[in-house]
């Protein structure tokens, strides 16, 4: 078990290292570089001065080494457009994104388990087909379109919820203006329920036809008891993995939701940085979000191995 965890962690560190290298090289292709930061009226002297100040005149490996050294000490440089360090910007924004994604994921998974189990029980009946079709359509719906539909209906037409996310600086403030959270969270829930419920259904259909389920039925257990007493816990195992693997997808969705509802999270920060070519923010956020993704998948793998002993011995 410890060997398995150690292998996964080493792999994860390697992946994060690759991410930093890839992103670092990519960002050095930014057009205009320093000139685009200073604007068209900058003199060549000013450009040269800032280039030197930012260390951009050194070879890329040297710059990378310097950046990595700083990063490991929590120093990710300064934003070009906002007079703040990247680390403090991320510290301010990351918790809000985690609130949005965490809340949405929790609701989505619960809903998906209920819907998926119902579909498995009613498999190949009309209800199942309709639900599968709806899930298919929701899955194909771009997150921003889903968000816009909710805004059109619930904010513009019926005036039930605000179309703006709360702009509070603290987490408590977010919840104090809770009605503003409803539409962003609902958007993310709707698009992810479709993804999760398909897996829960498939997994539950498999489990319901397993030998142990048949044995339970033969011993006189009712269908409800088979479902909740026996099948449910086995269905949950793949859901754990799915949760871990869906993290990059959820973060992507969160970025779009944040831009639709002007939710002050990390995605909005990243989006603005991309539009304004704010290179230190792009670099810092990409690495942090990738680390979060990788940690998520490692945790999912470990949980999976704990829950299902077959995994750790086979790999």
């Amino acid at each position, binding site marked *: 078990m410890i060997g398995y965890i150690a292998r996964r962690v080493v792999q994860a560190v390697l992946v994060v290292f*690759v991410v930093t290298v890839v992103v670092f090289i990519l960002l050095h292709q930014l*057009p205009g570089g320093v000139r685009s930061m200073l604007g068209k009226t900058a003199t060549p002297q000013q450009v040269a001065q800032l280039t030197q100040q930012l260390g951009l005149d050194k070879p890329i490996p040297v710059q990378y080494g310097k950046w990595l050294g700083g990063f490991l000490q929590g120093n990710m440089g300064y934003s070009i457009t906002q007079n703040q360090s990247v680390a403090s910007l991320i510290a301010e924004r990351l918790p809000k994104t985690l609130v949005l994604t965490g809340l949405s994921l929790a609701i989505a998974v619960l809903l998906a388990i209920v819907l998926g189990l119902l579909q498995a029980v009613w498999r190949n009946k009309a209800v199942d087909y309709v639900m599968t079709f709806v899930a298919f359509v929701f899955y194909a719906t771009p*997150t921003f379109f889903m968000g816009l539909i909710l805004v059109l209906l619930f904010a513009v037409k019926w005036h039930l919820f605000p179309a703006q996310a709360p702009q509070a600086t603290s987490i408590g403030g977010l919840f104090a203006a809770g009605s503003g959270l409803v539409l962003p969270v609902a958007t993310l829930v709707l698009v992810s329920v479709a993804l999760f419920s398909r897996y829960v259904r498939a997994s539950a259909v498999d489990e319901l036809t397993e030998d142990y389920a048949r044995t339970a039925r033969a011993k006189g257990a009712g269908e409800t008891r088979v479902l909740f007493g026996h099948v449910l816990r086995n269905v949950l195992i793949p859901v754990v993995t799915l949760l871990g693997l869906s*993290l990059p997808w959820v973060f*992507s969705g969160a970025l*779009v939701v944040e831009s639709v509802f002007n939710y002050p999270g990390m995605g909005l920060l990243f989006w603005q940085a991309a539009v304004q070519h704010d290179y230190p923010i792009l670099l810092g*956020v990409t690495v942090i979000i990738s680390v979060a993704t990788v940690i998520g998948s490692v945790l999912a793998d470990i949980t999976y191995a704990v829950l299902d002993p077959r995994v750790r011995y086979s790999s």
Partner: protein
Amino acid sequence: MIVPERPGAEPHDGAVPESYASAPQRGRRWIAVVGVFAQNRLALVSAAFLVLFALFCFIGPLVHSTDQVHTNLSIVNLQPGSPGHVLGTDGQGYDQLGRLMIGGQTSLEVGVAAALLATLVGALVGAFSGFFGGVADGVIMRCVDGMLAIPTVFLLLLLAAIVTPTKTTLVVIVALISWLVTARLVRGEALMLRTRDYVAAARSMGSTSPRTVLRHIVPNSLSVIVVNATFQVADAILVLATLSYLGLGLAPPQTDLGGMLNDGMNYVYNGTWWLIWPPGVAIVAIVVAFNFIGDGMRDAFEVRLQRR
């Protein structure tokens, strides 16, 4: 190079191995694939819809000719049903129906081109990586893992920040994101196929490595590649729409379906539902259609595998 052991080789069940299949058999197999696909009504309806939508986008402007280049601020946000504007006009005075046509054109063109490019690159990288194995394979696959660890939309914005958006650069950006999954899938196929007898036979007859990959590994992974390419088109159209929605797509007056939603969002409080629903529903319909076709093809090819 020593031919690796064959732990994954399939047990012989008396059937003729695929490598000995003669040309007519191969032809018949493709007919069987088409046959199974044709029985799938959902896939057929989807294909018909896509043909109609493509006609609408590419032939439509000849029938319903509108100015999609010059703004006309005297006819801004007209209601659907206004004279000459069945779907109304948008915030720049463009006819919305005509806009839907040129937006659809861009989405289809870029989506299909990006999917093809991604499939080509992904299939070649995956096939060579899996075939050669060893250090090169390890390095390539760790790079793929690393890029896959960056959430799609983040990678997308990162790439989009670097280039000036034109149709060509958008194709390249979307393909750069999409090829990763194809490469992984085809690598898996290549790992399995390189242990087959006919590959060993081809090598013993002096087939060079590139030739073996291109003549044996890639053609025999074709079903996986084709099915995946269909799903890639759906994903590429979604990715492009997201990029345009976030304002990093084509510059006006060009647009795509996602860009139209970005424009429409500015007027959402005026209740201009016709700027949101048509392009949005079009995206969903196209993506659902490509997914159904992909499902149909997967089923068709799997049947082929069973009947082998």
